């Protein structure tokens, strides 16, 4: 039953929601503000209105080739997502539509790999990459990110496929659809929103991944995470420049996220409500 909510309560909750949202967003906002400050301004203390200089951006671009890092990020995140989907769709499909006694165990086992601290396998992974000639290569990073995100992709798709009512598939079988007809005309069109939101979320996860991308790449395959990292150490801390680099790195994904927020929310909350 719906409860009557007073206007006061509504206003209270709205303010609370805005405060929490601002708190979460503030670090990103302050990074963007700082990127429009000069280095002197940046270290001068807390100030919300920047002078609006673009010198940090100019310097960042002159010091390193932003476009090259950006392209690496695109190739690695999109590539790893496509690869993950190719493996995860059939896997999730079979687990959702013809589960066995062990399906739940397999799903839990897959998820448990995400609980392992990545640093625990850093040395063996590094050595494997070195021996197979995958260090600082786009292929190596693509495969690595695919492996890291695969459990989440399988889980998301599995939950999504499970929401497709079995009776609809049975109806298509009664209607004379072959397995191929069932997949092409019924299952895939119904699963496309789920596949799309999984894809978007995975691109974001891959784009933001820093632990492995920084450690397994140096120059050729280095994505935007490495681009940010390259501004943080050698010459000491230059906050404005670092902020400009960070803003440049997060901007594409922020824009993509903004335009696809409906899909993303659906992907993240799918299965929670009917």
């Amino acid at each position: 039953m719906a409860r009557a909510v007073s206007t006061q309560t509504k206003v209270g909750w709205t303010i609370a929601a805005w405060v929490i949202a601002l708190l979460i967003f503030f670090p990103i906002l302050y990074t963007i503000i700082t990127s429009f400050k000069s280095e002197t301004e940046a270290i001068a203390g807390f100030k919300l209105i920047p002078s609006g200089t673009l010198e940090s951006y100019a310097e960042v671009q002159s010091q390193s080739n932003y476009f090259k890092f950006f392209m690496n990020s695109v190739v690695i995140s999109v590539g790893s997502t496509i690869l993950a989907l190719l493996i995860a769709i059939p896997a999730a499909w079979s687990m959702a539509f013809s589960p066995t006694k062990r399906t739940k165990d397999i799903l839990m086992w897959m998820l448990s790999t995400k609980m392992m601290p990545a640093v625990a396998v850093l040395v063996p992974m590094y050595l494997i990459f070195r021996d197979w000639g995958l260090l600082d290569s786009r292929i190596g990073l693509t495969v690595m990110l695919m492996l890291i995100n695969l459990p989440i992709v399988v889980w998301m798709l599995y939950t999504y496929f499970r929401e497709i009512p079995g009776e609809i598939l049975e109806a298509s079988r009664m209607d004379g659809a072959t397995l191929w007809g069932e997949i092409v005309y019924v299952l895939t069109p119904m699963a496309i929103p789920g596949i799309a939101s999984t894809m978007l979320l995975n691109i974001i996860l891959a784009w933001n991944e820093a632990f492995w991308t920084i450690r397994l790449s140096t120059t050729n395959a280095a994505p935007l995470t490495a681009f940010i990292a390259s501004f943080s150490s050698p010459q000491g801390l230059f906050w404005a420049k670092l902020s400009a680099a960070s803003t440049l790195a997060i901007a594409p994904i922020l824009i993509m996220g903004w335009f696809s927020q409906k899909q993303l929310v659906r992907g993240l909350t799918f299965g929670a409500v009917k």
Partner: protein
Amino acid sequence: MGNITLKQVSKSFGATVIIPKIDLVIEDGEFVVFVGPSGCGKSTLLRLIAGLEDTSGGTINIDGRDVTGEAPAKRKLAMVFQSYALYPHMTVAKNIAFPLKMAGESQASIDKKVQDAARVLNLTNYLERRPGQLSGGQRQRVAIGRAIVRQPSAFLFDEPLSNLDAALRGTMRLEISELHHQLKTTMIYVTHDQVEAMTMADKIVVLNAGNIEQVGSPMELYKTPKNLFVAGFIGSPKMNLITGAPAAKVGATTVGVRPEHLAISKTSGDWKATVGVAEHLGSDTFLHVHSDGVGPLTVRGDGEISVKHGDTIFLTPDPSKLHRFGADGRAI
């Protein structure tokens, strides 16, 4: 044609037996209703006929052909599901056309058949809508349309009206019955609602725990129930089943008397009873009474009776309408 014959058909899931061996003959053009309480195996039996479940034993013949191992689509049956099972991403027209498309029919023939089905089912104005934009009744009609266009040898309905509200259920019940008169195709209809069974069926199959308790026309089942289960299940309100002295008096372990076969008097009668609840429905009055030595009883009277909680009345059962049952629960 739509003769369906089940011979020794059984179904088990692991060690759990859902349907022990069943024999059943469904004649061409019959409207057969499988009725029984939840979990009695009626839906499973329908799914076995449809081919959506594999049988554990026995054979299913459709028009003399053994279809036991055949895929659902090859059995030439159409099914209407409880949840409608429409394709949400397709328009009404495309939903209805889907089986024809799968059968590889030409576009011109598909268009004609879809238009015809839409006309029969009053869906012409909704052909371009998607299922999400339709009401429950319209969705159910689309599901029926999808079944009609295939011109199947039999229709299978799996509790098709249970998601609809009471008023719409009544309307759709009539529409399905009319459709059966028009098409004259075999229909097998699963429901737990005995009112649907009584009003629609040519033949009712009463199921309990996977067993067929009785097969017969609605009036046969009403008048001569073979056992206590059928007696208690068919008829609304339920038959009063009385044990003890009143049953012994007529030489039975249990005696059954329907609520409409008890004469009500305010002055005299066989059983003295106190009114607990009086439900005045306008056309009828249902009295829930308690009689010492007999037990709780439901009585159906006319709409004009003016009795209320606490009143004393006298009841006399019609001796020609008594149902006698032995210790094994079977009719004597």
